[in-house]
């Protein structure tokens, strides 16, 4: 049976140096449920160490938490990686960590990178330079995500920094994104006018929340059968009545 799933697929936790301290997995899950969201994705910069806590916090709530990450490619383009399972995200994290620019996070300049559990207890401070870029090109990032059966989505393509278009000028034909993401800064009409060139790609929109108040500010509705990345892929491609709506 097809039904509507309200999804916010781009949410940072307190592990991202630029996100607020209050973005604990528990608080995110609580806020998402309050806003009647059905699917969220935890997408920290170049790390997925708070995904497990968010999943545990959402256990028995009806909220689906996708295992995600926002990868910074060597071109400094941001790409969302979304998975159903923890095993894939863990493999991706190993690859990203081994390709991340070496260095230690400077908490004073970039912000703290806090790993917590589902009860908001601090487990660790991630010392890696998560704000920096990896050595993975956009091609290898997308290929790596697909080889692990995940969805690869180009983040906030309308932004003039850290987007595939701002960094490369245009989206190369042979880059197989599952979707392009529009940010909260642009509505559907503006997107249609500005990105007509890219209407062969499915589009979604999400909040890119760095603050609790941002969660759900923009969502995409997936009309599909079950909250899995496979069914989401079908919805993105309008297969068997499945589809997506936003804005």
């Amino acid at each position, binding site marked *: 049976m097809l039904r509507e799933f309200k999804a916010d697929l781009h949410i940072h936790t307190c592990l991202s140096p630029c996100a607020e301290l209050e973005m604990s997995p528990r608080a995110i899950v609580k806020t998402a449920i309050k806003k009647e969201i059905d699917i969220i994705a935890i997408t920290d910069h170049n790390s997925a160490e708070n995904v497990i806590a968010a999943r545990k916090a959402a256990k028995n709530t009806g909220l689906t938490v996708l295992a995600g990450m926002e990868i910074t490619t060597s071109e400094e383009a941001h790409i969302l990686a979304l998975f159903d399972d923890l095993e894939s995200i863990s493999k991706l994290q190993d690859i990203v960590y081994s390709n991340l*620019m070496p*260095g230690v996070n*400077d908490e004073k300049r970039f912000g703290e990178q806090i790993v917590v559990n589902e009860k908001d207890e601090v487990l660790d401070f991630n010392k890696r330079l998560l*704000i*920096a*870029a990896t050595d993975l090109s956009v091609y290898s990032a997308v290929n790596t995500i697909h080889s692990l059966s995940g969805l690869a989505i180009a983040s906030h393509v309308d932004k003039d920094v*850290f987007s595939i278009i701002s960094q490369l000028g245009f989206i190369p034909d042979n880059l197989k994104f599952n979707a392009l993401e529009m940010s909260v800064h642009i509505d559907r009409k503006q997107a249609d006018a500005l990105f007509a060139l890219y209407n062969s790609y499915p589009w979604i929109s999400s909040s890119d929340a760095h603050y609790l108040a941002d969660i759900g500010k923009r969502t995409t509705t997936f009309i599909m059968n079950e909250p899995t990345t496979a069914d989401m892929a079908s919805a993105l491609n309008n297969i068997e009545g499945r589809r997506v709506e936003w804005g």
Partner: protein
Amino acid sequence: MKLSNIVENLSLEVKTGENNLQNDVTGAYISDLLSDVMANGKEGNVWITLQTHLNIVAVSGLKNLAGIIIVNNRPVQEDVLQKAESEKVTIMSTPLPAFEIAGKLYQLLNG
């Protein structure tokens, strides 16, 4: 060479960090990728870029750069200027493109 000499000779508009113009300049680095500057920028370098994201302030502070020259008169958001002011990072602006301002700076430093 002092940053103030460069500002004067290249007619740069100083947007933040007026008080840091006595900084010594060791050279310059040109890049629009933040991570590249983090890897290859050197202390005392002037950074020539069109990148105006908030993170330029952090990168400049981290690498102890002498200052940032924004090219093509690219507008810099108010929040970036405020952060730069509070972090004592000097942001300067020029109407020239990177190639031309770099050429002039090279001559000035090596002339």
